[in-house]
């Protein structure tokens, strides 16, 4: 399926007094459009348009920029910005400004605003701005990761397959695995931990998809690998290469939400049995992993939680263990961000990213996710509809019901409107339209009336009539043979005459 995407990012560059570079091409304010092409494969191209408005600060903005620290300025500037999803506002402050700490040239706030220190001339500023735009909206790698199905295998980075596929909803399941309930009575206050740490992030992400969170405790659930005993540290070790085999036996017991079809994200907290503790995970180089956790792409994460051995070995069993949820949730939240592709990339040291605080997610990170998911959704719709069309081409007499047809029309219309909205930079409406397109196309594709097994292939119909065709073919074949024989004889006869 071919697809052309045009992604338009509205950017506002606001110059504070004293920061306007001398070599501006035109007097402020003016507009500028920059286009860039991202090649994905032969039939899919992504064109990005950065629609930039250059202007100088208003009086209110000027006042806000007069704050003491960058954080305060960011908070004060927020109500003055364009709050629509996907739009970015960059404030260029004079080189001598004390707003940014020493050595920091770019400050990315919690929302959609940034502070940039004016550099030497426009060219340097432009490269800095472009880098910043990519960090805050999308990069070539984030777009190719979203279109990973279409990218030839060799070109993908290792991270590209880690991100969860875009979906209308996700089920997040926290499971506490206690393989040894005789020795450990493990208790965790998951309800409070979810409310305190996970829910704020999910509230923020609710724009992207529906989330549901649940938890369970599984007893006698063991990992698939027997850890190796290390005499030096008198501990048990799981090496990196054995980790792929760890999940399988556990997975059979995890179960999925019977009442929903959304993909499940599993986070497992494993309390090793007494005979195998303490248990540490080793990385590829043999060094212990500091978090004692690992994640599995598109599946979830596992953390090993070691229980301290009691001081006296005679202590009566089971040992009561209350899990330190702060430590656990730190790891799980980091894994959650990783699985959603929200990990913070390597940035030059001159960049300073504001920590998202309690919400766990900055506004511009949400935008990043939306850009990638919108592109991915449109690509998915196009793939789904193409394979549906292929199926219909293959079976000529398939019956297409009116409701299926209307779903297909709706999917096409929504996908088109999503593409159009992307091209004018309306990220939010584009994402909504792409979601609707996915829903409609999936509903059409999985309609039970379109099961290709319902239709007889033509060769079977032919086989049923073999009893007719075979006896009918006999006289025809015989007469053909006779003709052949006669012509041969006729050919031979003249030579005989000679």
């Amino acid at each position, binding site marked *: 399926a071919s697809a052309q995407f045009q992604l338009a990012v509205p950017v506002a560059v606001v110059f504070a007094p004293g920061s306007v570079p001398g070599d501006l091409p035109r007097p402020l304010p003016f507009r500028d459009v920059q286009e860039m092409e991202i090649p994905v494969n032969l039939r899919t191209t992504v064109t990005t348009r950065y629609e930039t408005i250059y202007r100088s600060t208003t009086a209110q903005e000027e006042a806000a920029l007069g704050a003491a620290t960058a954080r305060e300025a960011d908070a004060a500037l927020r109500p003055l910005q364009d709050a629509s999803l996907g739009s970015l506002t960059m404030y260029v402050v004079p080189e001598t400004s004390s707003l940014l700490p020493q050595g920091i040239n770019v400050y990315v706030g919690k929302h959609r605003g940034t502070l940039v220190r004016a550099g030497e001339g426009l060219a340097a500023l432009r490269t800095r701005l472009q880098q910043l735009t990519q960090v805050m909206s999308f990069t070539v790698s984030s777009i190719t990761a979203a279109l990973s199905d279409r990218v030839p295998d060799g070109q993908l980075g290792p991270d590209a397959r880690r991100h969860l596929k875009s979906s209308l909803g996700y089920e997040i399941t926290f499971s506490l695995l206690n393989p040894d309930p005789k020795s450990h009575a493990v*208790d965790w206050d998951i309800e409070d931990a979810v409310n305190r740490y996970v829910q704020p992030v999910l509230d923020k992400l609710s724009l992207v998809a529906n989330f549901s969170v649940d938890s369970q*405790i599984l007893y006698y659930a063991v990992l698939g690998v027997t850890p190796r005993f290390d005499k030096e540290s008198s501990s048990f070790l799981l090496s990196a290469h054995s980790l792929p085999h760890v999940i399988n036996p556990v997975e059979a017991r995890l179960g999925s939400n019977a009442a929903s079809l959304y993909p499940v994200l599993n986070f497992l907290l494993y309390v090793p049995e007494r005979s195998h503790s303490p248990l540490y995970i080793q990385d590829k180089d043999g060094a212990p992993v500091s978090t004692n956790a690992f994640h599995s792409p598109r599946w979830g994460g596992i953390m090993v939680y070691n229980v301290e051995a009691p001081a006296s070995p005679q202590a009566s069993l089971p040992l009561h263990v*209350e899990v330190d949820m702060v430590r656990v949730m730190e790891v799980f939240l980091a894994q959650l961000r990783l699985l959603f592709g929200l990990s913070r990339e390597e940035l030059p040291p001159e960049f300073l990213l504001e920590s998202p605080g309690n919400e766990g997610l900055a506004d511009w990170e949400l935008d990043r996710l939306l850009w990638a998911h919108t592109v991915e959704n449109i690509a998915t719709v196009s793939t789904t509809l193409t394979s549906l069309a292929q199926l219909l081409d293959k079976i000529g007499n398939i019956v297409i019901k009116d409701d299926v047809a209307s779903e297909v029309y709706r999917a096409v219309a929504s996908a088109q409107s999503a593409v159009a909205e992307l091209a004018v930079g309306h990220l939010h409406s584009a994402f909504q339209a792409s979601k609707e397109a996915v829903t409609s196309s999936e509903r059409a594709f999985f309609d039970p009336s379109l099961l290709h097994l319902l239709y007889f292939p033509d060769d079977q119909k032919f086989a049923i009539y073999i009893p007719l065709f075979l006896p009918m073919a006999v006289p025809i074949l015989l007469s053909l043979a006779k003709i052949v024989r006669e012509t041969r004889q006729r050919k031979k006869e003249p030579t005989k005459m000679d």
Partner: protein
Amino acid sequence: RGGMLAAVLLLLTAAGPGPGPVPVRAGRDALREELLLSPLPDGDVAATFQFRTRWDADLQRGAVSHYRLFPKALGQLVAALGVRELHLALTQGFWRTRVWGQPPLQAPAGAELWVWFQPTVTDVDKAWEELSNILSGIFCASLNFIDSTNTVTPTASFKPLGLANGTDHHLLRYAVLPREVVCTENLTPWKKLLPCGSKAGLAVLLKAERLFHSSYHSQAVHIRPICRDASCLAVSWELRQTLTVVFDTFSSGQGKKGKLGSSALWSLSVHSTSLSLPLTLLPTDWSLFKMFSRTLTDACPLASQSKVYVDISPKNKEKELLEVTPPPASVHEAIVQGDKRTYAVYDLLSPSLFNTSRSLNVQLKWKRPQDSSDLPTPILHAQRYVSGYGLQTGEISTLIYNTHPYRAFPVVLLETVPWYLRLYVHTLTIITKGKENKPSYIHYQPAQDRRRPHLLEMLIQLPANSVTKITIQFERALLKWTEYTPDPNHGFYVSSSVLSALVPSVIAMKDVDVDVEQSSLFTSLFPSSDGSSYFVRLYTEPLLVNLPTPDFSMPYNVICLTCTVVAVCYGSFYNLLTRTFHVEEPSRGGLAKRLANIIRKFRGVPPL
């Protein structure tokens, strides 16, 4: 109790983990496990496992999503689909009430599912369909074949067993799949729902190779809301997983192999139990090891109660209790189903039990009744068969026996007949002791072809010491060719009919208002109304009815035949059109001439 224990532990382990006092959410959920072993009158042994998870949380609010002992899959199902009560039973074999007596929990052969939905559910049929599909996935059973053609809404037979403030039967759905075969793939997901799996506790005995080598195997899941406490202001949810299995003493390693088996048992049980075991066992002796090829070594560490009950009620006229080894720590007396029973109780959680031996292998000795005629007959039992000849009409007869010497009691009969047996309601006759018995309540819902089955519910009074015969005639319908099941010549199953009754007790039951949390599990599923009667639900045999079955190769035969005819016609016509005709020279004579020539040759005369 848990809180105290934890506090003690913290004192013991000063350097223990966990900052500050441990917040123990005590009493939020609790697991009890129980095994009841009862020798049956004819010498077989029934083992009934019950695992009960009680959760003090309201599943319906939707806010609960953090599971501990209660299985997440079922909890989410209950919350998402507005289920108030769910009863699913998968059964292989048939409980022979007449020889085995009243079962603790009976289920019809095949799969049985009945569900009460919440009044908030707007589209009950849709929820029912969704539920049966999800359950079919969870239990690997063909419950997805439950559709409107085998679903009924009984009005009187199935009342909610749990807490319910309304019994609007429109919220009830009931379906039986009598053809369902139950096997290991259904047992494995059932065991997976247990908090301890089959790794510890009583569930270690649940090994498929023994359980399915039995006369009767029934596993069930019951979910219902119950009162949290006596004041009943809050709701708790109860999940009961039950498994009943009947071992045939002859098929389970007796007869010729008996000696061998018992000597092996002997050598294995030396370390475990008392040495008073005779070397030659009587045929009716059995032990846990013999039945399950395993013994019990511990309780499930998560269970708050783990007990084995053995029915040692006297079987002979001398009224002596059956002998059981090892000697039980306590003996429990109860009146179960109108009968005074004595149980030997082994508490797996009491530390003294495993002090003397590492494992518990309960063994029981008793003399099997020599004469099968003096088997005690249960007060209520029933029998059903189909009669008639030919493939057009037939008759279903149900015989219901009331053997109570002096008490009459009513019984509710539920009959579900698939639409392809067209019942003639005017032929319905109920005859007791030669006289017509008029039912005091009849609910009949006629079938609609391909849409819903017949439903017949009747309240019939059974006089004391009587046999009631209910007959109804039917006509067999012709099905469309796609509607036949695979192997249609095997016949079509008609699900068991259901008998529900409050059977008067022969001995007065103490109207004991025992706390449900303390009493044994096998007595507490069905509520008993008062001291004078007890609730019984019986299932009759499923029926196998032959329907007029066409020869399914016929269409192909017809195609072959007509095609051949067409081809032959075509061939000769083709020959006629394409052959070139030319005048043949007169032949050299026929057979007669050749024969004549041979004779002439012998005679030496020149040929013709």
